[in-house]
């Protein structure tokens, strides 16, 4: 079935469900009384939510959910994960199948009318991956080479425009799957691979020293968790948890997770005047 139809039918179900979904008690209290957090997420996207070799669910989204559980119960493991496809993120929220969805959800105005987003915990963008010992040193070198550069990218309607936004003259080779896209870079058929910064960062941590980031990112988008509309107190709570994870008491947990999945050491927030108001 075409993806559009899938999404349309899911939206229709969500709408039906929303019409019925009566407002019960306060969500924060409900979760506290239950003693565990029910989190909707996926299981097929590294480094966000995927299974390690032992079959455990791991990733940056998972760590965000654990921060919320830690805040609620002082136990990061007090979570029941509900496995859901990307299309099911909104329906599962509005039908109360999950308390919160943490599944690399891009914040858009359209979605913000159906669910309520928490503050963002990551800024995604497209980046360029190069071989560490390759011909081109960085983004400027790629750009200077103009039409002599071939970029491998995952097949997509917008792939060509996406690459040309950063490298207007580059040749774009589209590949069916992620492994083939990286394979093109490895074998020298492509000079750079263009994909999500997070995927690049994760891929680089998998084989240290083999690749490098070209140092240019574009197509920004914010990743947030989402909750059911109308649960203001619950939303405030999750926002507080995330805010303090990025700037306050849980910064070390957040930074350790960031380092693990994206290979980047974060500087601690400056002490004194709160950085977010500068």
């Amino acid at each position, binding site marked *: 079935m075409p993806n559009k139809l899938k999404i349309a039918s899911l939206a229709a*179900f969500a709408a039906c*469900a929303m019409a019925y979904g009566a407002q019960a008690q306060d969500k924060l209290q409900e979760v506290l009384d239950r003693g565990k957090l029910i989190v909707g997420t996926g299981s097929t996207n590294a480094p966000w939510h*995927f*299974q390690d070799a032992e079959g455990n669910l791991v990733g940056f989204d998972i760590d965000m959910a654990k921060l919320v559980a830690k805040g609620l119960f002082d136990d990061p493991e007090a979570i029941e994960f509900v496995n859901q496809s990307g299309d099911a993120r909104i329906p599962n929220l509005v039908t109360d199948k999950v308390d919160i969805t943490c599944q690399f959800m891009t914040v858009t105005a359209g979605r913000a009318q159906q669910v309520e987003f928490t503050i963002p915990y990551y800024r995604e963008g497209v980046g360029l991956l190069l071989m560490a010992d390759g011909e081109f040193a960085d983004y400027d070198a790629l750009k200077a080479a103009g039409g002599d550069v071939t970029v491998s990218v995952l097949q997509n309607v917008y792939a060509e425009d996406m690459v040309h936004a950063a490298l207007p003259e580059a040749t774009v080779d589209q590949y069916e799957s992620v492994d083939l896209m990286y394979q093109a870079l490895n074998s020298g058929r492509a000079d750079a691979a263009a994909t999500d910064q997070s995927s690049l960062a994760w891929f680089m941590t998998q084989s240290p020293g083999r690749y490098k980031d070209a140092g240019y990112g574009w197509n920004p988008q914010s990743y947030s968790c989402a909750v059911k509309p109308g649960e203001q107190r619950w939303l405030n709570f999750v926002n507080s948890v995330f805010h303090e994870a990025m700037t306050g008491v849980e910064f070390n947990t957040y930074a350790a997770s960031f380092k693990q999945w994206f290979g980047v050491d974060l500087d601690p927030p400056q002490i004194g005047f709160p950085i977010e108001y500068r």
Partner: protein
Amino acid sequence: MDFAAFLDQAWASRNLILAGLGRTILISAIAIFFGTILGVAIGVLLTYGNIVVRFVIRIYTDFLRGTPVFVLILACFYILSVAGVDLTPFQAGTFALALFCSSHVGEIVRGALKAIPVGQTEAARSIGLTFPQIFRYVLMPQAMRQILPTWVNTATEIVKASTLLSIIGVVELLLTIQQIISRTYMTLEFYFLAGILYFIVDFAIERAGRYFERRVAIPD
């Protein structure tokens, strides 16, 4: 493609793959079993029921056959939960497949029963057999020969349709494979493996169907 590395990863993930395969087989077996029982009842009612029963059952089968399985699965998962029946993804998905299976089996059974000349029923009745006896000894043995080949078709369809349960989060074989791919980046290799495993399951159903076809065939 590095075949040794693929075998390595496949071996390391063998328990996950077997669990996924097991779940696919379990879902399919439950759905086909209950779908067939319900389907036979539907087929009989469609053939011998009175006009009101026939009308109601006709709407049921036409509605189910005219709806994509995908929509059916979503309906069982989301609509039922809104109506207060809170099924797990596994239960909702298997239920949807069983309903889908029943509508198809119902039509198969109806067609097979209709193909038997009405004179046979009349003859059976004239020697004093009751309807259950006629059904058991006269109609069903003949209908089976018609039903089996198409029933195999429906059963293999159900196995294939079980992949759609991944959309509501049931970790069956396909979702298991996708989880492994997201860790190993070996897309084509693992999808190929999934293809082989699905083929083996469907091939086994086909062979079983053939075996029973021979059992019910008219001896030469």
